């Protein structure tokens, strides 16, 4: 990109003046290319019908590039997934970047292109946005906020409060990969791994599943806090007990090894391309086999079941046949000390 002689982002790039326009014209508009954005108005004009899902999320991941993704891809997939979890068809996103002065323009370019690719794959349009530049050390390289809109088809009624006794809990693949990839990329623990983040947009997979069953009660992506925390949220919202089978949890050997060495529990590790689905037993096989046919669900697995309960809770039936409580994550997960 021809940014005059600049190789780095300057405060002037966020001033709204010439350099801002240059960035928009040369990088952002061509990358996100769509007629709504290119009108360059103060707000995007959308024509929406029916029930609409609306969500926002901010992304501050460090490092900004990691095995399996980067902050740009994550910012798109994260918001697309939040819409998809409500059964919505994601349509439009806005993207607002806060950039630290001194960031290489080539880095910003990589991130923007990655966002454009992720948006294209998910079938959403980025129709508005913002770019601010702050002084050195006022933020860490780049923070991105994305906001998304999606339309909810008629008859779709999905909520964390809809889990019913007898429902089967299904997940679409290996857990803990995003957190493990980020932790290895950070090199805090000097562990070399081959683990890649599972960062992916799940809307196509979910659209497919919604054609197979009209009875999906709950869908939720186990991001921060991991599967354990997400299931606790659902147990509380639906006032049920969820029992998980430790033996059935899909965990890859590299992630297991990583967790065993550091003394952390993969059930509490963030995922960015996973969905927990609650569906009545009669539809569970259909949903499972549809998942396994999709590229993002090859390792899908039934991991648990919902029971009536006086008090909402999540129990884990351990591999040796005993049972224990699985609580929400408290604080950060820290390595053990001996």
């Amino acid at each position, binding site marked *: 990109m021809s940014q005059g002689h600049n190789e780095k982002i300057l405060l002037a790039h966020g001033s709204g003046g010439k350099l801002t326009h240059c960035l928009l014209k040369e990088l952002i508009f061509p990358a996100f290319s769509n007629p709504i954005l290119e009108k360059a108005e103060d707000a995007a004009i959308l024509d929406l019908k029916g029930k609409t899902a609306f969500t926002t999320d901010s992304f501050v991941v460090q490092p900004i590039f990691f095995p399996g993704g980067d902050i740009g891809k994550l910012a798109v997939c994260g918001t697309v997934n939040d819409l998809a979890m409500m059964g919505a068809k994601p349509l439009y996103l806005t993207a607002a970047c806060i950039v630290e002065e001194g960031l290489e323009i080539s880095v910003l370019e990589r991130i923007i292109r990655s966002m454009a690719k992720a948006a294209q794959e998910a079938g959403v349009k980025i129709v508005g946005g913002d770019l601010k530049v702050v002084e050195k050390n006022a933020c860490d390289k780049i923070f991105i906020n994305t906001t998304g809109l999606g339309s909810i088809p008629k008859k779709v009624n999905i909520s964390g409060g809809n889990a019913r006794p007898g429902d089967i809990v299904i997940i679409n693949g290996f857990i803990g990969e995003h957190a493990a990839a980020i932790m290895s990329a950070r090199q805090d623990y000097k562990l070399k791994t081959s683990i890649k983040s599972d960062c992916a947009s799940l809307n196509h997979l979910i659209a497919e599943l919604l054609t197979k069953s009209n009875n999906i009660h709950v869908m939720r992506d186990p991001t921060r806090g991991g599967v354990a925390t997400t299931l606790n949220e659902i147990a509380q919202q639906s006032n049920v007990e969820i029992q998980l089978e430790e033996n059935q949890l899909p965990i890859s050997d590299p992630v297991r090894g990583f967790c065993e060495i550091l003394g952390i529990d993969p059930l509490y590790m963030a995922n960015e391309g996973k969905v927990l689905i609650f569906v009545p037993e009669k539809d569970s096989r259909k949903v499972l086999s549809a998942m396994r046919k999709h590229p993002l669900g090859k390792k899908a697995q039934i991991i648990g079941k919902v029971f009536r309960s006086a008090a909402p809770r999540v129990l884990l039936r351990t591999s*040796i046949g*005993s049972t224990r*409580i699985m609580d929400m994550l408290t604080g950060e997960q820290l390595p053990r*000390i*001996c």
Partner: protein
Amino acid sequence: MKYIDEFREKSIVKNLASQISKFSGLQINLMEVCGTHTMAIFRSGIKQLLPQNINLISGPGCPVCVTSQSDIDSMLELASIKNLIIATFGDMLKVPGTKSSLEKIRSSGSDIRAVYSPLDALEIAKENKNKEVVFLAVGFETTAPIIASVVDDARRLKIKNFSVYCCHKLIPPAMAALLATREIKIHGFLCPGHVSSIIGTKAYQFIAKEFKIPCVISGFEPTDILETILMLLKQIAKNAASVEIQYKRAVRPEGNIPAQEMLKRVFLPCDADWRGLGIIPKSGLQLNPAYDKFDARLKFQIKPSKTTEPKNCLCGQVLRGVKTPVQCKLFAKACNPENPYGPCMVSSEGTCSAWYKYNR
């Protein structure tokens, strides 16, 4: 996964549990003195597989938990010094001192960094030559040799801005102190696997000989722990008391000789203040005078403060195995992981933390 799944194999677990169930009758109290054992027992739900007469009690096995309130306050005092970086194992962050915690004072600007290894602390010192770096050395015999080698490296490399605040403790003297209180009847010890990989079996012989209590050094997987329990029960049934190794894949009778030599070179045994147990003679490690320059207590003239443990907090009694967490009025009410009264609730190996997480 290889080398893990074998030790969680359900059929072996069942077989061991059924052999253990033959020892029904007499009430038997077995104590584990390692936080990793405590967590492993709760995580895998081993207590559910034992007959009612066999009672597993958690002892003073979590290094963070046994650190005295006075030491925690001194660490907070250190962390408030300007231009000083605290490097610590992550477990210390949330532990409440009398007025604050490392996590809280970090949010108001102190430079406190969680590290996985003390080697990282030395790296931080090399990278920040204009600042002092203090490593909070909390742990038992397992981590002590690494600290010793880091301090030794610092001296060899003439690194002047690095020191350690040493609260290292030794497990066997605490086991003896606990037996001497006669507060609870202990019939056998599950001895810590990692500590023993350093110190071997010799360090426990006096417990078997003088106190006539069987000791078995245990691994950390469900089958390890069950086999250890079975070995202890067999000794108890025969009225024997010896030190045995169940965790043979990691522990040798003589221990790790180079690690022991490293300890001797850098540390001297000293009296140490344990939460719940008070001062136990020769139960701690201090840097020997040749390494004075690396002793944060001397370098920053930190004097032990007179502190009392938090009111109504039963951490001390929990650490002695006299009370269980549910007998504490604060447990899971006023005291929880977000708002802890004592360290046992926040350390990842604390007994209260294990009960809170897995057994409420």
